[in-house]
C-alpha cells in the first residue's frame, strides 16, 4: 500500500475567515489640507494589504466619509479588490450619524457572514477626525450604541484625532480606550501601523492575543491627549 501521506486528501476549498474594517473619515471642510495625506494613506493601506498573501483575502473594508453628509463608499470588499474612494472636503461634521452608520453596516455584514457560513474576526472601526460632532442631537444615542457594542464585544473602536480634535468628545465613546492624538503630519506612519495591525489580526488563531503595536512610543505616530 502507498504511504498514508499520499492517500489522505487535504481540504483546500475552505473559504478564508474575514476581518471586517470600517474606516470613518472626517471630510468636513476643515479637513481640506489633510485629505491628500489621508488619500495617500488609504492608497498605502491598500498596497500593504494587497501585498500580504493572508490579509489580502481576509481583510474586508469599507470607507464611510462624514463631511456635510454621511457617505458609504461601495460595499465591504476584499482588500485585494479595494479601491480608495476620491475624498473631497465640505460641510460640517455629522460624526454621530457616521458612527451609527458604521454599527448598522457591521451588523448587516456579520449577518451576511453567518448566512454564508463564513468565520470572522471581531470587527474594527477606525475613526479619523480633526474636530467634533456637529450633529449633537444624535450624539447621545450614538455614544450609547457604541458603548453597548464595545461592552458586548461586538467591535473594537479606535479613534484618532489631529491636534484640533475634541478629545473629551472622542473619549465619551470608549471609556476603556483613550483616543489618540496624531502627531504632526504622521498620517503615513499611522496608516502603516493600521496595515500591520490588520495583517497581525488576520493571522491570529484561537488563544492568540493580538496586541496592537503601541502607537505612542518614541517612534510612534500618536500621543495620548493631555
Amino acid at each position, binding site marked *: 500500500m502507498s504511504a498514508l501521506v499520499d492517500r489522505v486528501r487535504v*481540504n483546500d476549498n475552505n473559504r478564508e475567515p474575514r476581518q471586517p474594517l470600517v474606516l470613518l473619515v472626517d471630510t468636513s471642510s476643515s479637513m481640506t489640507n489633510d485629505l491628500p495625506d489621508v488619500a495617500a494613506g488609504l492608497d498605502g493601506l491598500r498596497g500593504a494589504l494587497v501585498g500580504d498573501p493572508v490579509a489580502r483575502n481576509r481583510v474586508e473594508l469599507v470607507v464611510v466619509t462624514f463631511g456635510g453628509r454621511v457617505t458609504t463608499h461601495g460595499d465591504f470588499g476584499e482588500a485585494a479588490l479595494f479601491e480608495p474612494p476620491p475624498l473631497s472636503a465640505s460641510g460640517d461634521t455629522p460624526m454621530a450619524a457616521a458612527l451609527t452608520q458604521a454599527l448598522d453596516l457591521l451588523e448587516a455584514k456579520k449577518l451576511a457572514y453567518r448566512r454564508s457560513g463564513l468565520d*470572522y474576526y471581531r470587527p474594527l472601526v477606525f475613526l479619523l477626525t480633526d474636530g467634533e460632532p456637529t450633529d449633537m442631537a444624535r450624539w447621545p444615542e450614538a455614544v450609547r450604541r457604541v458603548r453597548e457594542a464595545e461592552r458586548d464585544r461586538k467591535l473594537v473602536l479606535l479613534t484618532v484625532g489631529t491636534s484640533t480634535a475634541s478629545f473629551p468628545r472622542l473619549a465619551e465613546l470608549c471609556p476603556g480606550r483613550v483616543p489618540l492624538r496624531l502627531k504632526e503630519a504622521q498620517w503615513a506612519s499611522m496608516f502603516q501601523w493600521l496595515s500591520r495591525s490588520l495583517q497581525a489580526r488576520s493571522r491570529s*488563531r*484561537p*488563544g492568540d492575543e493580538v496586541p496592537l503595536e503601541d502607537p505612542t512610543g518614541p517612534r510612534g505616530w500618536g500621543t495620548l491627549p493631555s
Partner: protein
Amino acid sequence: MSAWQVVGASVRGPDHAREGSPGQDAWARGLFGGRGACVCLCDGAGSASHAEVGARVVADAVVAALAEAPAGESAATETLRRACAAGRAALLQRAADLAVAPTALACTLVAAVCMDGWVAVAHLGDGAVVGRRADDGELALLSAPDRGEYVNETWFVTSAAWATHLRIGVHDEISALCVVTDGCQEASLVRGDRGSPFAPFFAPLFDFTAEVSDLAAADAEVLRLLDGAAMRGSSGDDKTLAIAWLTSP
C-alpha cells in the same frame, strides 16, 4: 488485550518552528476498562507562556484518571467529567508549582473513551472528533469545534466557565474515531454552520487502520502525514491527530 487500538502523532507547526517556540499540542493514550482505550488531545493557547506544559499535564492527567475509572456506559458521562476535572486540577497544581497564573498554562481538551459498542467524547474548545459508524461505515461529526463568535476565540481548561463549555456525548455503534486539534481543522472539515467531515481526508485514515500491524510504524505514518507538504500548507499551527478503532468486533 484491548479490543481497541490507538495510533497518532503530534507535530510542531511550521509557524512555531520558524519562531523557535515549542510545539504547544500534546496527547496521551491509555487503556480503559480492560477491553477499551482512551485518548486525550490538548492544544495549548498561543499567547500562554507555558501552554506546552499545560497541554502535557492535562493530557497525561486525563488519561491517567480514565485508566482507573469504571467502564460502564451509563457512568460514561460522569467518568469523563471527573477525568476532565482531574486534568484541570493537575494544571492548577502545576501552575502553583511554577508560581505562574493558571492562564499561563491555558489549553483546550478533547478526550474520548472507546468500548465495545459505544464511545464517549468530552470536548472543551476547538478541535474535532469524527466517527465511523459500525453499520454502514458513514462518517459522523461526533464533536464539532466550539468557540465564541469570533474565529480567534475559544474556551480553555483554565476558563472560569470551563464546566459550562465542557460538552460530553455518548455514541453507540461507532467502530472507529479520529480526534484532531485545531491545526488539522482546516484540512479535515468542511467549513459551515457546524462543519462536516471532509471525506477524502477521513476515509483513507479509517481504511488505513485495517492494515496496521505495527503500532510504532503506524504512528510514524501519521507523523509523516501531519508533517507533509499538504498539511503544512493548510495551517502553520501545531497538529495532532489520533485514530482509535475496534479490532475484534
